[in-house]
Protein backbone atom coordinates (compact mmCIF):
# COMPACT_ATOMS: atom_id res chain seq x y z
CA UNK A 1 0.00 0.00 0.00
CA UNK A 2 2.88 2.29 -0.64
CA UNK A 3 0.81 4.48 -2.95
CA UNK A 4 -1.27 5.98 -0.19
CA UNK A 5 1.12 6.97 2.56
CA UNK A 6 -1.55 8.55 4.75
CA UNK A 7 -3.64 5.40 4.92
CA UNK A 8 -1.75 3.93 7.80
CA UNK A 9 -1.52 7.21 9.67
CA UNK A 10 -3.92 7.92 12.52
CA UNK A 11 -5.16 11.19 11.07
CA UNK A 12 -6.57 10.30 7.70
CA UNK A 13 -6.20 12.81 4.91
CA UNK A 14 -8.93 13.92 2.61
CA UNK A 15 -11.47 16.64 3.03
CA UNK A 16 -12.00 17.94 6.52
CA UNK A 17 -15.42 18.48 7.89
CA UNK A 18 -16.83 21.74 9.10
CA UNK A 19 -18.72 22.13 12.33
CA UNK A 20 -22.02 21.34 10.65
CA UNK A 21 -20.63 18.16 9.11
CA UNK A 22 -20.20 19.44 5.58
CA UNK A 23 -16.98 18.96 3.73
CA UNK A 24 -14.73 21.95 3.74
CA UNK A 25 -13.76 23.39 0.45
CA UNK A 26 -10.77 21.23 -0.45
CA UNK A 27 -7.42 22.88 -0.87
CA UNK A 28 -4.77 21.94 -3.37
CA UNK A 29 -3.34 19.15 -1.21
CA UNK A 30 -6.75 17.65 -0.56
CA UNK A 31 -7.59 17.78 -4.20
CA UNK A 32 -4.32 16.12 -5.15
CA UNK A 33 -5.00 13.34 -2.66
CA UNK A 34 -8.48 12.89 -3.98
CA UNK A 35 -7.32 12.72 -7.58
CA UNK A 36 -4.66 10.20 -6.59
CA UNK A 37 -7.18 7.99 -4.84
CA UNK A 38 -9.51 8.32 -7.80
CA UNK A 39 -6.82 7.33 -10.28
CA UNK A 40 -5.86 4.34 -8.14
CA UNK A 41 -9.47 3.22 -7.99
CA UNK A 42 -9.98 3.66 -11.72
CA UNK A 43 -6.77 1.82 -12.44
CA UNK A 44 -8.11 -1.07 -10.40
CA UNK A 45 -11.37 -0.96 -12.33
CA UNK A 46 -9.44 -0.99 -15.59
CA UNK A 47 -7.49 -4.01 -14.43
CA UNK A 48 -10.71 -5.85 -13.72
CA UNK A 49 -12.32 -4.57 -16.86
CA UNK A 50 -15.11 -2.77 -15.03
CA UNK A 51 -16.44 0.39 -16.60
CA UNK A 52 -19.48 1.33 -14.59
CA UNK A 53 -19.12 1.25 -10.83
CA UNK A 54 -22.15 3.31 -9.93
CA UNK A 55 -25.08 3.26 -12.33
CA UNK A 56 -25.95 -0.41 -12.20
CA UNK A 57 -26.30 -2.76 -9.24
CA UNK A 58 -24.09 -5.33 -10.97
CA UNK A 59 -21.40 -2.79 -11.57
CA UNK A 60 -21.51 -1.60 -7.99
CA UNK A 61 -21.17 -5.13 -6.69
CA UNK A 62 -18.36 -6.01 -9.09
CA UNK A 63 -16.44 -2.87 -8.20
CA UNK A 64 -16.88 -3.53 -4.50
CA UNK A 65 -15.66 -7.07 -4.85
CA UNK A 66 -12.70 -6.32 -7.09
CA UNK A 67 -11.59 -2.92 -5.85
CA UNK A 68 -13.22 -2.56 -2.47
CA UNK A 69 -10.16 -1.22 -0.70
CA UNK A 70 -9.40 1.31 -3.40
CA UNK A 71 -13.04 2.36 -3.34
CA UNK A 72 -12.89 2.94 0.40
CA UNK A 73 -9.77 5.02 -0.01
CA UNK A 74 -11.48 6.95 -2.75
CA UNK A 75 -14.46 7.67 -0.50
CA UNK A 76 -12.18 8.63 2.34
CA UNK A 77 -10.18 11.13 0.38
CA UNK A 78 -12.95 12.76 -1.57
CA UNK A 79 -16.30 14.23 -0.70
CA UNK A 80 -19.09 11.81 -1.49
CA UNK A 81 -20.46 14.10 -4.17
CA UNK A 82 -17.07 14.06 -5.86
CA UNK A 83 -16.90 10.29 -5.77
CA UNK A 84 -20.26 10.02 -7.46
CA UNK A 85 -19.28 12.68 -9.94
CA UNK A 86 -16.03 10.99 -10.91
CA UNK A 87 -17.60 7.56 -11.17
CA UNK A 88 -20.31 8.87 -13.47
CA UNK A 89 -17.79 10.91 -15.40
CA UNK A 90 -15.78 7.80 -16.09
CA UNK A 91 -18.76 6.25 -17.88
CA UNK A 92 -19.58 9.42 -19.75
CA UNK A 93 -15.99 9.90 -20.86
CA UNK A 94 -15.82 6.34 -22.10
CA UNK A 95 -19.02 6.74 -24.08
CA UNK A 96 -17.78 10.00 -25.50
CA UNK A 97 -14.57 8.36 -26.61
CA UNK A 98 -16.48 5.52 -28.23
CA UNK A 99 -18.78 7.92 -30.04
CA UNK A 100 -15.86 9.92 -31.37
CA UNK A 101 -14.13 6.75 -32.51
CA UNK A 102 -17.27 5.52 -34.21
CA UNK A 103 -17.77 8.80 -36.05
CA UNK A 104 -14.14 8.92 -37.10
CA UNK A 105 -14.31 5.33 -38.31
CA UNK A 106 -17.24 6.34 -40.48
CA UNK A 107 -15.18 9.13 -41.97
CA UNK A 108 -16.89 11.94 -40.12
CA UNK A 109 -15.10 14.87 -38.61
CA UNK A 110 -15.40 15.97 -35.03
CA UNK A 111 -15.69 19.70 -34.62
CA UNK A 112 -16.12 20.92 -31.10
CA UNK A 113 -18.82 23.55 -30.81
CA UNK A 114 -17.28 26.99 -30.77
CA UNK A 115 -18.54 30.40 -29.87
CA UNK A 116 -18.36 32.88 -32.70
CA UNK A 117 -15.04 34.65 -32.37
CA UNK A 118 -13.90 37.86 -33.92
CA UNK A 119 -11.98 37.40 -37.10
Amino acid at each position, binding site marked *: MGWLPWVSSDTPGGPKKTSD*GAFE*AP*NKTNRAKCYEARDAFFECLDRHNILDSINTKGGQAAAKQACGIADQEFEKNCAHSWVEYFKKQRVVNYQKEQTIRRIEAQGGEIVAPQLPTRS
Partner: protein
Amino acid sequence: MKAIKSSSLLRLELQGTRTSVRRTLSSHSPNTAVLSRTVASGSASHFRTLQSSSVPCRSPAGSLRKPFCQARSFSNSTARCKLRTIEQVKARNKGGPFNLAAALLFVATGGALYAYFTYEKQRMDRKRIAEETKGIGKPKVGGPFDLVDHDGNRFTSDDMHGKYALVYFGFTHCPDICPDELDKMAIMYDKVVERCGKVLLPLMITCDPARDTPEVLKEYLKEFHPEIIGLTGEYENIKQTCKAYRVYFSTPPNVKPGQDYLVDHSIYFYLMDPDGDFVEAIGRNFTAEQAAKLIGDHIKDWSGPLNKKDRWA
Protein backbone atom coordinates in the same frame (compact mmCIF):
# COMPACT_ATOMS: atom_id res chain seq x y z
CA MET B 1 -35.75 97.21 -29.98
CA LYS B 2 -34.70 100.15 -32.11
CA ALA B 3 -36.76 98.92 -34.98
CA ILE B 4 -39.85 98.69 -32.88
CA LYS B 5 -39.50 102.15 -31.46
CA SER B 6 -38.95 103.67 -34.85
CA SER B 7 -41.95 101.90 -36.22
CA SER B 8 -44.18 103.21 -33.46
CA LEU B 9 -42.91 106.71 -34.14
CA LEU B 10 -43.72 106.20 -37.74
CA ARG B 11 -47.19 105.15 -36.76
CA LEU B 12 -47.69 108.31 -34.77
CA GLU B 13 -46.60 110.32 -37.73
CA LEU B 14 -48.98 108.49 -39.93
CA GLN B 15 -51.82 109.14 -37.58
CA GLY B 16 -51.03 112.81 -37.56
CA THR B 17 -51.35 113.17 -41.27
CA ARG B 18 -54.93 112.44 -42.10
CA THR B 19 -55.74 111.81 -45.68
CA SER B 20 -58.65 110.10 -47.22
CA VAL B 21 -56.86 107.73 -49.55
CA ARG B 22 -57.29 104.15 -48.57
CA ARG B 23 -55.93 101.14 -50.27
CA THR B 24 -56.25 97.53 -49.54
CA LEU B 25 -52.94 95.81 -49.13
CA SER B 26 -54.15 92.34 -48.63
CA SER B 27 -51.20 90.86 -50.48
CA HIS B 28 -48.68 92.35 -48.02
CA SER B 29 -50.30 92.44 -44.69
CA PRO B 30 -50.60 88.73 -43.91
CA ASN B 31 -46.83 88.34 -44.09
CA THR B 32 -46.07 91.16 -41.76
CA ALA B 33 -48.85 90.19 -39.43
CA VAL B 34 -47.59 86.65 -39.08
CA LEU B 35 -44.04 87.82 -38.66
CA SER B 36 -44.86 90.41 -36.06
CA ARG B 37 -46.98 87.99 -34.09
CA THR B 38 -44.13 85.50 -34.02
CA VAL B 39 -41.69 88.12 -32.89
CA ALA B 40 -44.08 89.35 -30.23
CA SER B 41 -44.61 85.91 -28.81
CA GLY B 42 -40.86 85.37 -28.77
CA SER B 43 -40.25 87.09 -25.48
CA ALA B 44 -42.44 88.52 -22.78
CA SER B 45 -40.51 91.78 -22.40
CA HIS B 46 -40.59 92.28 -26.09
CA PHE B 47 -44.30 91.80 -25.98
CA ARG B 48 -44.80 94.35 -23.22
CA THR B 49 -42.79 96.94 -25.10
CA LEU B 50 -44.89 96.41 -28.13
CA GLN B 51 -48.13 96.82 -26.27
CA SER B 52 -47.09 99.94 -24.43
CA SER B 53 -45.71 101.59 -27.52
CA SER B 54 -48.58 100.72 -29.78
CA VAL B 55 -51.19 103.34 -30.31
CA PRO B 56 -54.86 102.46 -30.25
CA CYS B 57 -56.05 102.23 -33.76
CA ARG B 58 -58.87 104.46 -34.70
CA SER B 59 -60.54 103.50 -37.87
CA PRO B 60 -61.87 106.26 -40.05
CA ALA B 61 -64.33 103.86 -41.57
CA GLY B 62 -66.13 103.57 -38.26
CA SER B 63 -67.46 100.52 -36.52
CA LEU B 64 -67.25 98.31 -39.58
CA ARG B 65 -63.41 98.19 -39.61
CA LYS B 66 -62.95 98.43 -35.91
CA PRO B 67 -62.67 94.76 -34.94
CA PHE B 68 -60.00 94.13 -37.57
CA CYS B 69 -57.83 97.02 -36.45
CA GLN B 70 -58.16 96.27 -32.77
CA ALA B 71 -57.22 92.69 -33.35
CA ARG B 72 -53.85 93.93 -34.56
CA SER B 73 -52.62 95.27 -31.27
CA PHE B 74 -49.85 92.64 -31.27
CA SER B 75 -48.28 94.01 -34.40
CA ASN B 76 -45.31 96.31 -34.39
CA SER B 77 -45.88 97.42 -37.94
CA THR B 78 -48.42 99.97 -38.97
CA ALA B 79 -51.92 98.71 -39.30
CA ARG B 80 -53.23 98.55 -42.80
CA CYS B 81 -56.12 100.83 -41.91
CA LYS B 82 -53.66 103.60 -41.03
CA LEU B 83 -52.19 103.77 -44.45
CA ARG B 84 -53.77 106.63 -46.29
CA THR B 85 -51.42 107.39 -49.14
CA ILE B 86 -49.50 105.33 -51.60
CA GLU B 87 -46.36 106.89 -50.13
CA GLN B 88 -47.26 105.58 -46.75
CA VAL B 89 -47.82 102.16 -48.15
CA LYS B 90 -44.54 102.35 -49.98
CA ALA B 91 -42.80 103.50 -46.82
CA ARG B 92 -44.30 100.67 -44.87
CA ASN B 93 -43.29 98.07 -47.37
CA LYS B 94 -40.00 99.63 -48.30
CA GLY B 95 -37.93 96.72 -47.24
CA GLY B 96 -40.43 94.19 -48.49
CA PRO B 97 -40.96 91.28 -46.13
CA PHE B 98 -37.32 91.56 -45.07
CA ASN B 99 -36.50 93.49 -41.94
CA LEU B 100 -34.29 93.07 -38.92
CA ALA B 101 -36.75 90.91 -37.02
CA ALA B 102 -37.18 88.58 -39.96
CA ALA B 103 -33.43 88.33 -40.37
CA LEU B 104 -32.94 87.58 -36.69
CA LEU B 105 -35.69 85.01 -36.76
CA PHE B 106 -34.20 83.41 -39.85
CA VAL B 107 -30.74 83.23 -38.37
CA ALA B 108 -32.03 82.00 -35.02
CA THR B 109 -34.16 79.28 -36.61
CA GLY B 110 -31.38 78.26 -38.92
CA GLY B 111 -28.88 78.15 -36.09
CA ALA B 112 -31.22 76.18 -33.89
CA LEU B 113 -31.94 73.66 -36.63
CA TYR B 114 -28.25 73.31 -37.42
CA ALA B 115 -27.41 72.75 -33.79
CA TYR B 116 -30.22 70.24 -33.43
CA PHE B 117 -29.29 68.26 -36.50
CA THR B 118 -25.61 68.27 -35.58
CA TYR B 119 -26.43 66.98 -32.12
CA GLU B 120 -28.78 64.38 -33.48
CA LYS B 121 -26.23 63.19 -36.01
CA GLN B 122 -23.55 62.83 -33.37
CA ARG B 123 -25.95 60.98 -31.12
CA MET B 124 -26.84 58.57 -33.89
CA ASP B 125 -23.17 58.02 -34.65
CA ARG B 126 -22.44 57.24 -31.01
CA LYS B 127 -25.35 54.89 -30.87
CA ARG B 128 -24.30 53.13 -34.04
CA ILE B 129 -20.76 52.65 -32.78
CA ALA B 130 -21.95 51.46 -29.40
CA GLU B 131 -24.24 48.94 -30.99
CA GLU B 132 -21.67 47.84 -33.49
CA THR B 133 -19.11 46.96 -30.90
CA LYS B 134 -21.40 45.92 -28.13
CA GLY B 135 -24.67 44.61 -29.41
CA ILE B 136 -25.18 43.18 -32.85
CA GLY B 137 -24.35 39.55 -33.32
CA LYS B 138 -23.25 39.21 -29.74
CA PRO B 139 -25.16 38.19 -26.71
CA LYS B 140 -25.86 40.95 -24.25
CA VAL B 141 -23.87 39.61 -21.36
CA GLY B 142 -23.24 41.17 -18.01
CA GLY B 143 -24.96 43.83 -16.04
CA PRO B 144 -25.21 45.37 -12.64
CA PHE B 145 -24.67 43.26 -9.56
CA ASP B 146 -24.26 43.83 -5.86
CA LEU B 147 -22.09 41.27 -4.11
CA VAL B 148 -19.53 40.88 -1.34
CA ASP B 149 -15.84 40.28 -1.96
CA HIS B 150 -13.69 37.75 -0.13
CA ASP B 151 -12.72 40.35 2.46
CA GLY B 152 -16.34 40.95 3.31
CA ASN B 153 -16.50 44.33 1.56
CA ARG B 154 -19.29 45.29 -0.77
CA PHE B 155 -18.40 44.83 -4.42
CA THR B 156 -20.70 46.08 -7.15
CA SER B 157 -20.46 46.13 -10.91
CA ASP B 158 -19.32 49.76 -10.61
CA ASP B 159 -16.08 48.56 -9.07
CA MET B 160 -15.26 46.87 -12.36
CA HIS B 161 -15.31 50.12 -14.30
CA GLY B 162 -12.03 51.58 -15.48
CA LYS B 163 -10.39 48.19 -15.85
CA TYR B 164 -10.88 45.14 -17.91
CA ALA B 165 -12.41 42.34 -15.94
CA LEU B 166 -12.10 38.61 -16.40
CA VAL B 167 -15.14 37.07 -14.79
CA TYR B 168 -15.32 33.40 -13.93
CA PHE B 169 -18.17 31.57 -12.28
CA GLY B 170 -17.36 28.59 -10.11
CA PHE B 171 -17.56 27.22 -6.62
CA THR B 172 -15.02 26.01 -4.12
CA HIS B 173 -16.38 22.46 -3.90
CA CYS B 174 -15.93 22.04 -7.61
CA PRO B 175 -14.32 18.66 -8.31
CA ASP B 176 -12.04 19.14 -11.27
CA ILE B 177 -12.94 21.76 -13.85
CA CYS B 178 -12.92 24.91 -11.74
CA PRO B 179 -9.49 24.29 -10.18
CA ASP B 180 -8.07 23.68 -13.66
CA GLU B 181 -9.69 26.79 -14.98
CA LEU B 182 -8.60 28.90 -12.03
CA ASP B 183 -5.04 27.72 -12.53
CA LYS B 184 -5.40 28.82 -16.11
CA MET B 185 -6.83 32.13 -14.96
CA ALA B 186 -3.78 32.73 -12.79
CA ILE B 187 -1.45 32.13 -15.75
CA MET B 188 -3.59 34.31 -18.00
CA TYR B 189 -3.57 37.09 -15.45
CA ASP B 190 0.19 37.01 -15.00
CA LYS B 191 0.76 37.08 -18.74
CA VAL B 192 -1.61 39.98 -19.28
CA VAL B 193 -0.06 41.96 -16.44
CA GLU B 194 3.35 41.31 -17.93
CA ARG B 195 2.23 42.71 -21.27
CA CYS B 196 -0.21 45.47 -20.35
CA GLY B 197 0.19 46.30 -16.68
CA LYS B 198 -2.35 45.91 -13.95
CA VAL B 199 -5.42 46.66 -16.02
CA LEU B 200 -7.19 43.35 -15.59
CA LEU B 201 -9.42 42.50 -12.69
CA PRO B 202 -9.68 38.74 -12.18
CA LEU B 203 -13.03 37.94 -10.59
CA MET B 204 -14.41 34.63 -9.48
CA ILE B 205 -18.10 34.70 -8.68
CA THR B 206 -19.35 31.73 -6.73
CA CYS B 207 -22.43 29.86 -7.81
CA ASP B 208 -22.72 28.31 -4.38
CA PRO B 209 -23.29 31.16 -1.94
CA ALA B 210 -24.56 28.85 0.81
CA ARG B 211 -21.16 27.24 1.33
CA ASP B 212 -18.84 29.82 -0.18
CA THR B 213 -18.61 32.49 2.47
CA PRO B 214 -16.00 35.25 2.05
CA GLU B 215 -13.62 33.36 4.36
CA VAL B 216 -13.92 30.13 2.40
CA LEU B 217 -13.35 31.98 -0.86
CA LYS B 218 -10.34 33.79 0.46
CA GLU B 219 -8.76 30.59 1.69
CA TYR B 220 -9.56 28.86 -1.59
CA LEU B 221 -8.41 31.54 -4.01
CA LYS B 222 -5.13 32.44 -2.39
CA GLU B 223 -3.84 29.07 -3.57
CA PHE B 224 -4.46 30.03 -7.16
CA HIS B 225 -3.47 33.68 -7.28
CA PRO B 226 -3.47 36.33 -4.56
CA GLU B 227 -4.97 38.88 -6.95
CA ILE B 228 -8.09 36.90 -7.81
CA ILE B 229 -11.10 38.46 -6.14
CA GLY B 230 -13.76 36.07 -4.97
CA LEU B 231 -17.32 37.32 -4.91
CA THR B 232 -20.24 35.90 -3.03
CA GLY B 233 -23.53 37.24 -1.73
CA GLU B 234 -27.13 36.45 -1.02
CA TYR B 235 -28.66 33.64 -3.02
CA GLU B 236 -30.94 36.05 -4.87
CA ASN B 237 -28.07 38.38 -5.75
CA ILE B 238 -25.98 35.51 -7.05
CA LYS B 239 -28.90 34.17 -9.03
CA GLN B 240 -29.51 37.58 -10.58
CA THR B 241 -25.82 37.98 -11.42
CA CYS B 242 -25.70 34.56 -13.04
CA LYS B 243 -28.77 35.45 -15.04
CA ALA B 244 -27.19 38.71 -16.21
CA TYR B 245 -24.11 36.79 -17.36
CA ARG B 246 -26.25 34.08 -18.95
CA VAL B 247 -24.70 31.52 -16.67
CA TYR B 248 -26.62 28.35 -16.10
CA PHE B 249 -26.38 27.17 -12.56
CA SER B 250 -28.33 24.66 -10.58
CA THR B 251 -27.78 25.61 -6.97
CA PRO B 252 -30.78 24.71 -4.86
CA PRO B 253 -32.10 27.75 -2.96
CA ASN B 254 -32.47 26.02 0.38
CA VAL B 255 -29.57 23.80 1.29
CA LYS B 256 -29.50 22.01 4.61
CA PRO B 257 -26.35 22.60 6.61
CA GLY B 258 -23.86 19.84 6.10
CA GLN B 259 -25.36 18.75 2.81
CA ASP B 260 -22.92 17.49 0.20
CA TYR B 261 -23.80 18.51 -3.32
CA LEU B 262 -22.33 19.73 -6.55
CA VAL B 263 -23.38 22.67 -8.66
CA ASP B 264 -23.68 22.57 -12.40
CA HIS B 265 -22.67 25.81 -14.02
CA SER B 266 -21.34 27.28 -17.24
CA ILE B 267 -17.58 27.40 -17.51
CA TYR B 268 -16.65 30.43 -19.55
CA PHE B 269 -14.38 33.30 -18.78
CA TYR B 270 -16.14 36.53 -19.56
CA LEU B 271 -13.97 39.42 -20.67
CA MET B 272 -15.60 42.74 -19.85
CA ASP B 273 -14.27 46.10 -21.06
CA PRO B 274 -13.66 49.11 -18.79
CA ASP B 275 -17.21 50.32 -19.46
CA GLY B 276 -18.50 47.09 -18.02
CA ASP B 277 -19.61 45.79 -21.41
CA PHE B 278 -19.09 42.27 -22.58
CA VAL B 279 -16.25 41.75 -25.04
CA GLU B 280 -15.71 38.06 -25.44
CA ALA B 281 -16.28 34.67 -23.87
CA ILE B 282 -13.26 32.44 -23.47
CA GLY B 283 -14.05 28.77 -23.30
CA ARG B 284 -12.06 25.71 -22.35
CA ASN B 285 -10.82 25.36 -25.90
CA PHE B 286 -8.43 28.24 -25.25
CA THR B 287 -5.10 27.54 -23.65
CA ALA B 288 -3.89 30.03 -21.06
CA GLU B 289 -1.43 31.44 -23.61
CA GLN B 290 -4.05 31.88 -26.33
CA ALA B 291 -6.45 33.47 -23.89
CA ALA B 292 -3.79 35.82 -22.54
CA LYS B 293 -2.93 36.92 -26.08
CA LEU B 294 -6.58 37.52 -26.89
CA ILE B 295 -7.13 39.57 -23.75
CA GLY B 296 -3.92 41.53 -24.34
CA ASP B 297 -5.02 42.37 -27.89
CA HIS B 298 -8.35 43.64 -26.65
CA ILE B 299 -6.63 45.77 -24.04
CA LYS B 300 -4.30 47.24 -26.66
CA ASP B 301 -7.30 48.14 -28.83
CA TRP B 302 -9.00 50.03 -26.07
CA SER B 303 -8.53 53.77 -25.97
CA GLY B 304 -11.17 54.52 -23.38
CA PRO B 305 -10.70 55.62 -19.79
CA LEU B 306 -8.50 52.74 -18.83
CA ASN B 307 -6.63 53.35 -15.61
CA LYS B 308 -3.58 54.61 -17.45
CA LYS B 309 -1.54 55.37 -14.40
CA ASP B 310 -1.24 51.65 -13.79
CA ARG B 311 -0.96 50.76 -17.40
CA TRP B 312 2.62 51.41 -18.36
CA ALA B 313 4.01 51.54 -14.90
